[in-house]
C-alpha cells in the first residue's frame, strides 16, 4: 500500500519536474534576456541626475535601493552599508542649496579597480563597475581609493539576503546599477523607478550609446557635469544644475 503511494507521489513529482516546471521557466525566460548571453560593449550604461528635480527630504531612491538589494541596517549607521545616499550641499559662491543622490559614479577609469589586488573590483565592458563577491578579500583598499566614498564594507553577519543581490560578510560592495535587472533585459534601476513613481523624475538611467535613449536626451538637453572632473575619471553618472 505504502509502496504504491510512494510510487504515485514520485511519478507525479517526476512528471511535474519534467514538463510543468520547464514550461513555467521558459515562459519567464522568453520575456527576459537569456542569462548565458555575454555582456558586450554595444551598450554603455549611465545615469543622469537633475538635482533641481531632486526633492529635499525625499528618500524614495534610497529606500528602493535598500529593498532591491536587501540592505537592512543593524542600527549602526557608521558601519551599515549605503549604496546610495542623499546629500545636501550649498554652493560656496551662489549659496544655492541643492539635494541629490550620491552613488557609485561608475568611472571609466575607476581607481577602485586600479588598486584592487585580486581584480575583484572590475568594470564590465558595458561600463558597470562592481565587486566580484567571490574574489574580494576584504582589504578595503578600494574604499581608500574611491574619491566619492561610494563603497561600503559588510561589517556584520548577514542572515537574510535577496537572491538577486548576493552579498558577503567581510567583502566590499557598492551600487552596481541593478546589474541583475539589466542582465535580465530590464533597462531601469530601482532608484530610477522609485524617483519616477515619487513624481520627481530626477534620475534617468539608460544606454549612453543609444542616441535616442532617455538618458542621452537628458544629458544633451541639460549640459550636465561630472563630479571631481579634475580627476579625469570619466564617470557615467552625470549631474545637472549643481
Amino acid at each position, binding site marked *: 500500500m505504502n509502496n504504491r503511494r510512494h510510487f504515485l507521489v514520485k511519478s507525479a513529482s517526476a512528471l511535474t519536474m519534467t514538463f510543468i516546471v520547464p514550461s513555467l521557466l521558459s515562459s519567464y525566460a522568453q520575456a527576459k534576456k537569456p542569462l548565458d548571453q555575454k555582456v558586450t560593449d554595444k551598450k554603455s550604461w549611465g545615469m543622469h541626475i537633475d538635482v533641481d528635480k531632486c526633492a529635499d527630504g525625499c528618500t524614495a531612491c*534610497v529606500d528602493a535601493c535598500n529593498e532591491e538589494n536587501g540592505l537592512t541596517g543593524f542600527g549602526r549607521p557608521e558601519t551599515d552599508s549605503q549604496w546610495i545616499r542623499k546629500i545636501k550641499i550649498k554652493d560656496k559662491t551662489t549659496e544655492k542649496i541643492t539635494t541629490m543622490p550620491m552613488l557609485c559614479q561608475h568611472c571609466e577609469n575607476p581607481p577602485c579597480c586600479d588598486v584592487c589586488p585580486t581584480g575583484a573590483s572590475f568594470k564590465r565592458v558595458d561600463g558597470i563597475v562592481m565587486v566580484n563577491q567571490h574574489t574580494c*578579500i576584504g582589504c578595503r583598499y578600494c574604499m581608500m581609493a574611491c574619491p566619492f*566614498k561610494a563603497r561600503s564594507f559588510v*561589517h556584520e553577519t548577514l542572515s537574510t539576503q535577496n537572491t538577486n543581490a548576493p552579498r558577503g560578510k567581510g567583502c566590499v560592495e557598492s551600487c552596481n546599477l541593478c546589474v541583475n535587472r539589466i542582465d535580465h533585459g530590464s533597462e531601469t534601476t530601482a532608484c530610477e523607478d522609485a524617483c519616477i513613481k515619487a513624481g520627481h523624475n530626477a534620475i534617468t538611467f539608460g544606454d549612453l550609446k543609444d542616441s535616442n535613449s532617455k538618458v542621452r536626451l537628458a544629458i544633451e538637453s541639460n549640459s550636465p557635469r561630472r563630479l571631481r572632473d579634475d580627476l579625469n575619471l570619466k564617470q557615467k553618472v552625470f549631474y545637472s544644475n549643481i
Partner: protein
Amino acid sequence: MSDYTLNKLKAPRLLYWGIFLFLGFLILIGLASSAYMEHEGHYVTGMNNQIVWGLPHIFAVTLIIIASGVLNIASMSSAFNKKLYKPLAPLSALFAIAFLIAGLIILVLDLGRPDRLIVAMTTYNFKSIFAWNIFLYSGFFVILAVYIWSMLDFNVNRFSSLVGKIAFGWRIILTTGTGSIFGFLVAREAYSTAVLAPLFIVMSLLYGTAVFYLLLRVISRLQSIDIPDEITKNIRRLMIIFLLANIYFLILYHITNLYISKQIAVESFILLNGGGYTTMFWLGQVGLGLVIPLLYEMTNDEGRSFGLTITSLMALVGGFFAVAVIIIGGQAFPLNIFPDHIILESSFYDNVIHSYTPSIFEFGLGVGGTSLALIIILILITNLKFIPAKK
C-alpha cells in the same frame, strides 16, 4: 680568518621560558582577537565605512617598515663593505624576516576574508600596487632566507655579499612600494604625493636602526656580553643622520602639500586644527619621535649606550605616531567630493571629521603580531648561531 664567532643564545632557563610563555600568551590573545573580529564581523572594531584602515594597519605598516629598515646593519656590511657590522649581519637579516612575517600576519588577519588568502596569492591585478607588494614581500622573504643561509653556511659564504646587495636593492623597492600604497591614492588629499615613498624609506632607516639597537641591547643583556663601544658610537651617528633625513623629508612632504592649494585644508587639519591628530603630529611624531631624540643625541656624550637606548625608544614611539597620523589622520579628513560646495547634510558622514576609537581586539591583534616577531627571533637565536662573540 675572522676574529669572531657566532653563538646561540644562552639565557638563564627560567628567564627564557618566562619570556617565551609571555610572548606566547600575547600571540594567543592576538589570535583570539582576530578570530573574534572575523566571527562577529568588523563592527566590533573601531573601524567603519569612514575609517577603513585602523590600528591593525598602523601596527602592520610600522612592522613592515621596521622589517626593511632593520636590515640596515646587514646592508652596511654587504652593500657598503663596512667590516664593523659584519658579525651583526645575520642577526639583522633575521630581525628583518621576523618583522616582515609579523606585519604581514597582522594585515592578513585583519582582512574581511582572511580565508581567501589563497585568492590574493594566485589572482593578481598587476595595476594594483598592493598586488606588487605581495610579490615584493614574498620576494624579500625568499631573499632574506637565502641571505641568512649564505652568511651562516661556510660552503656558500662567498655569495653572501652578492645576495646582501640584492637584498639591499630589494628593500629600497619594497619600502617604496609600501609608501606608494598611500602615495598612489588620488582620492585622499593627505596622500597623493610621491614624496611619501622616500619618506617611508627614511622612516624605515630610522625605526629599523632603533629596533636593531634595542634588540641588540636585550640580547646582550640575556647573553651577558657587552656591545662594543664602536658599534654604539656608529649606530648613534647613523641615528643622527636618519633623524635629520626624516625631518628633511617630513618638511618636504608638508611644504609640497601646502604649496598645492587644494591640499591646504587637509594640511591645516593635520598641522593646526585637527585636535588629537594635530597633537599626535606635533607631540608624538615631531617632538618625541624626531626633535627631542635629535637634540638629546647632539648634546649627549658619545657612546653612552643608555642614551642611545632612550633615543631609540623615543624614535620608535614617535614612529608609531607618525604612521598613525598618516593612516588615520589621512582618512579622518573628509573627502573633497564637491570642491565648490559645502556639504550641509549627509547620512554617510560626508561633512564631518571622522572619528576613530580603536577597540581592544585591534590592539590585541597588533600586540600579538608584534610578539610573533619577537618569539621568532627568540626561538631562532636560541637554536641557531646568530650572536657574535670575540674569539
